[in-house]
């Protein structure tokens, strides 16, 4: 069973009494362990696609199944649980909680899960912070870190719950090219070593070269789906 399965998915937004289509009949499947980039120009529907996969939005029509569950039929609570337990998020603007330090930010989803003991949490958090190479900054506030460092914290936060899927919406858009490369390498490494599925959107060609599969969107439709 595919991790993600799109069946003729439509999504439109209402803007000034006019329905603006964002996705017009998308069908595709993503398997476990993929490292998939969604490419395309601005307004092609990349972010909408990721929002639907991330369960922060639901399709207007068609079927989107995540781990076999049709997201259109889930309650807010169920969607939240799905986000909490199955999905990790990496945002374009990092989106760390500013009042919390690095440790607390990474620990945050574990606390929401309430499944681990304190000791286990500390171990898990330190493991991932170490993995993204920021152990020495663990007590720092996000504002004390550089953009690249912040995004690495976000990656640690996204992975700490051991999600089957990590979504990254333009994770390198706010970074210089060196940092962008580093982030992509880190993601690739985690994908390779831990088998985590990554779906990220980007229009940076240098980063696209790292992807194992590139889905290109144009005007809400998939125009190419290229595996490498």
């Amino acid at each position, binding site marked *: 069973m595919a991790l993600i399965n799109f069946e003729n998915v439509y999504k439109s937004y209402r803007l000034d009494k006019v329905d603006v289509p964002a996705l017009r009949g998308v069908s595709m499947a993503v398997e476990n362990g993929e490292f998939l980039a969604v490419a395309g120009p601005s307004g092609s529907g990349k*972010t909408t696609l*990721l*929002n639907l996969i*991330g369960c*922060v*939005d639901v399709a207007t029509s068609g079927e989107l199944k995540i781990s076999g569950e049709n997201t259109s039929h889930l309650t*807010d*609570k169920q969607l*939240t*649980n799905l*986000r*909490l*337990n199955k999905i*990790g*998020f990496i*945002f*374009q*603007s990092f*989106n760390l*909680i*500013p*009042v*919390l330090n690095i440790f*607390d930010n990474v*620990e*945050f*989803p574990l*606390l*929401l*899960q309430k499944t681990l003991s304190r000791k286990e949490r500390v171990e898990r958090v330190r493991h991932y912070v170490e993995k993204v190479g920021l152990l020495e900054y663990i007590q720092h506030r996000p504002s004390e870190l550089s953009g690249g460092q912040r995004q690495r914290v976000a990656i640690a*936060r*996204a992975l700490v*719950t051991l999600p089957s899927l990590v979504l990254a*919406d*333009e994770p390198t*858009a706010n970074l210089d090219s060196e940092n962008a490369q580093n982030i992509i390498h880190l993601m690739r490494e985690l994908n390779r070593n831990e088998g985590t599925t990554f779906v990220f959107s980007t229009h940076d060609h240098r980063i696209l070269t790292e992807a194992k599969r590139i889905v290109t969107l144009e005007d809400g439709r998939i125009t190419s789906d290229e595996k490498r």
Partner: protein
Amino acid sequence: MIWNLAIRNLRAHKVQTFVVGSIVFFGTLISVIGAAFLDSVSLAIRKSITQSIAGDIQIYSSKKDVQFSVFGNSQGGDFPDIGQIENFPEVKRAILENIPNVKEVVPQGINFALLNPNTTLDRLLTDLRNHPETNALVQADTKEHVRTLAQRLGATYEKNALGFLKVTPEELITTRAALARATSNPFWDQFDSNRNDSLEFLENKIAPLESNDAMSYFFYVGTTPETMMRAFPLIEMVQGQPIPPGQKGFLFNEFVYEKTIKHKIAVRLDAIEKKLHTDHITISESKELQQKIQENVNQAPEFASEISPRVSRELASNLQNFLSIASGTTAELLPQFFKMNDANFATRKAYFYKTIAPHIVLYRMKVGDVFPLTAVSRSGSPNSVNVKLYGIFRFKGIENSPVSGYFSILDILTFRQLYGHMTPDRKAETQALEAEMDGALSAFDASNASDLFNQNIAVTSNTEGTNSSSNSSSNSSSNKDSNANPRSNEAQTRAKKSMNTKDVDTKNYTTQEMENGVTPNAAIILSNPNKLDETLRNIRKLFADKNWMLKAAPWIEVSGVLGQAAFVIKSILLLFMTIVYFIGIFIVANAVLMTTLQRTKEIGIMRAIGGHRSFIRKLILSEVFLMSTIFGALGVSAGLAIVTWLGVKGIPSPNENLEFLFSGPRLYLSVSASNLAISYGVAVLVCLGASLYPIRKAVKIQPITAMRAD
């Protein structure tokens, strides 16, 4: 984690935290002070009412359907007939024996009285009559004084007779003749040769012309004085002694004594000084004080006439020196003297009391005096009885309050006489007196013959029956006047005589005699006033069991508007607090909403990475809870500190009327632990309540907001 996050959020949003915190802080502060004020005023009112007159519980007959108030109704001083407690001694015994927590049962009867003290002329004539043996110099001075007063009366009479008095032409002629005689040389030359007749003429014809505007009105509680004094701890003697047990007698309340028995000019000077001291105003800026000064100036001629001619002459030079004026008589100088201003008030007032006051009657009644107390009986007719003034008391702490200040104390036996409840002894006496007076008057009527006027007609006094202490006769020249209206004139004189006679009942009465009689109501004093409700139930049950037609009312029900005052103040404060809290809710809700909306993105992120709505709700509630508990605790502490400080220093009463409510010139605040807890709890609850709307907004924030680029 929520707490950790909440604390960090509060720290991060310092402005909002400060705004909400301040609201909570001042809210609890005001609420603590308000509650303390309310508690203290309630306690003070209760103290003022229960420890002065009312007691904790009042009992009275339930036969009449009237609302009884010990302080009179809202119009003041209207005491309806409340009937009486049947067989009071038995009721008292039953209550004391059967009801625990009852300390005293004090019989009471409240009524309105007036007092019409002697005028200057009355006083001088009494002196002449009672002390014919005093030295010639004093005698001459007194006579001259009477003569000057008669001259003065003549002048005012002419003015008034043609004005509002509306006298008949005959009256005008006779009165003019009498005045002419009283100021003539021959009359005074022959005064001593026919002393009794001359005095009689002055007493009958001249003295009644002097108007008496110095009537004093007040209330009194008829009671068994020693129980009353024991039961009501606020009563404190300031002069004289309590009424001895078993004796009839009267105790003046210092308030009414100082205000109405003291000379009016002195009362005004006292009032001005008090205003200057307590209100920190000056005469030049107060219309009210200027008015008082003017009233003193206006009264100066009358005042001058109260000083004897000899003293007047002596005083003139002293006044000239004091005022630095080269010439002038006392009568001329006094109006200038009383025209005081801010610069000279203090020295003139001191001079008044030191140099002038000793020559006039400063208090028209003194401790030890026997005087006629007039009251309206139950049937509505005025009734007078001689009573002895044993002393002057005050209600400690509330001595300046007019509410309780107009209540004096009278023995219950005299109360019954005045109210129309006669003892058998008294009834017999009165009948004898009436018979005698009728006899005398018919004798007077029957004989218009001149020889009758030389005959002594016995005038009776209350207790001794016929005596010869005062003789009534008329000489031929007053014969014609008497004919004008002999009965009324003579009756007037008689009434005055019987009152002026210092006869008073000095019999010793037993407690049984005191209590065994009409008792309109009774005050019950409790050992533990906090058990009021329980005791009230027990008393009512006792009355029901015994089938007594009696009502038992808590103090708050028998104190009229005063009892309600506590309720009104409570309501106003409650309303005020409600408004404060409503404003508080509004501001807190807004501030929390503001922080929430500012953190829309953050909340969106938390929702996106798996935070449930319940998590967001808990987070905001925790923040508000933390803020309200911390700042609430600070507010309560600050409030407690202020209340404690005010508990030592006291809040000054803005005016005398409020002193009753404050139970003294200052209100000393105190606050109960339960009120502190309530203030604290309400503040926290109000804040949590205020955060409901922002929370509703917050949980609606969609996780998708996190995905949007900044």
